[in-house]
């Protein structure tokens, strides 16, 4: 459901900075359904990639074969990202707070971390330069605290957070994330239970359509037949 909702957020012809896992599934699903002209850019330097297998890493060789362009990483960050050529960026993280700020660096204090996470990678600059950020993350009070332990990627360009129960959106007046849409069979209280602050709601909540048979078939039989990322 998360991959399907994320895919539907993408418009045909958009230029998307893709991450590994569910965002990759979402982009390739969109490309095979309503957005055949989606341009997928991976931070490893593959532009216009059409991976023939599910990439396990962001630098999978299948991203190169048949792509439109392969460039060095200085070009990815300077000529594409900082230049403003990326319309949509996908991010995830161990923690997302009420403003959409993301932590992928440490749990606990930086100098004496309880858990050391991988760090920013390209996430800080994606959050700063992509025109619209989509976060994909499963709900839990630990993952959605009121404040992140470490601010790796600022949240001001976060448009939506796609969770396993519903969709949060940024409220432009308060700058806070608010509940905007619910998946079939889910109630607002289910979403609130997974968030560590008092989550406000839009006056009218969207009821999101379940995946179509085509979407499910593509995900399960073509894009991720081994269920590497479709466990949830």
């Amino acid at each position, binding site marked *: 459901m998360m991959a399907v909702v994320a895919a539907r957020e993408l418009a045909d012809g958009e230029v998307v900075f893709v991450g590994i896992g569910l965002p990759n599934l979402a982009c390739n699903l969109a490309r095979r359904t309503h957005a055949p002209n989606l341009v997928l850019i991976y931070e490893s330097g593959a532009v216009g990639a059409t991976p023939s297998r599910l990439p396990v890493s962001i630098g999978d060789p299948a991203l190169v074969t048949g792509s439109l362009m392969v460039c060095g990483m200085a070009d990815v960050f300077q000529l594409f990202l900082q230049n403003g050529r990326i319309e949509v960026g996908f991010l995830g993280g161990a923690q997302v707070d009420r403003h959409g700020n993301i932590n992928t660096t440490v749990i606990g204090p930086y100098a004496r971390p309880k858990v050391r996470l*991988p760090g920013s990678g*390209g996430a800080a600059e994606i959050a700063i330069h992509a025109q619209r950020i989509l976060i994909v993350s499963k709900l839990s009070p630990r993952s959605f605290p009121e404040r992140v332990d470490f601010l790796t990627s600022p949240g001001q360009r976060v448009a939506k957070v796609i969770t396993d129960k519903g969709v949060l959106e940024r409220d432009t007046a308060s700058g806070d994330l608010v509940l905007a849409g619910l998946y079939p069979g889910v109630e607002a209280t289910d979403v609130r239970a997974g968030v560590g602050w008092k989550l406000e709601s839009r006056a009218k909540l969207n009821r999101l359509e379940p995946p179509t048979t085509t979407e499910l078939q593509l995900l399960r039989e073509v894009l991720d037949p081994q269920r590497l990322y479709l466990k949830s």
Partner: protein
Amino acid sequence: MQDAVARHVRDGDVVVIEGFTHLISFAAGHEIIRQRRRDLTLCRLTPDLIYDQMIAAGCAKKLVFSWAGNPGVGSLHAFRRAVEGQTLEIEEYSHFGMVARFSAGAARLPFWTLRDYAGTDLPRVNPRIKAVTCPYTGEELATVPALNPDVTIVHAQRADAQGNTQIWGLLGVQKEAAFASQRVIVVVEELVDERVIRSDPNRTLIPATIVSAVVVEPWGAHPSYAQGYYDRDNEFYIGWDTISRESAGLSHYLDEFVYGVRDRAEYMQKQPRLAERLKAGEQRCAGVNYGF
């Protein structure tokens, strides 16, 4: 490889083994471990399994990086143990920050400017990320200092005997890292005649003029990959999570596959089915006309 590492990698050096997922010289990393180099400052965007192994083997004093995970799998356990136990010094950037450091180093400038880090906590924990006011627009821009390694090691598909080096597929930041470095070791799948290089000069990433040593080491990037030669060994990357979860398991791996072999050829002999499982398929490009 033995000679190149003995000659060009010294205790206390700032060492870069670059390659973004693609073309990571595990063969060189293993040789550095075998020669028991110490107090190295290891720099890479993504430390990957190779620096995890070098940290576990006691080669590293400090790590300079931007994303320290096992790509597509999870954590780097030796790295996490060292950081959570505070036995390894770290200096942390984002990918763009590391790329910019190499770009400044390659251009022999003292720093590089970038529009980055506004609103993030990274400058708070890394005082080397600073800011400058643009003399033309008044805009505040982030800066990172140049990175000029003592030695950079790059794995590539092919080079000639002088070190003119050609790479295709993902290019990472190898060109900038090599030009930024005092010494450069190139490790290749194949040594080719200079005529092969001259037939397709646009594919040359690193010229012989900056290369200190050329080493021929087929499969030297395994478990990472070489486009057109062999695929990434994703099974090994997944397996590393179990191997490295406890330091005993990791030591056992180093004893068998690093200390227990003399070179890459012996490493490959120990794993006879590897080549067959990972050998690349054919996908040739159409040639171009360089005539005039």
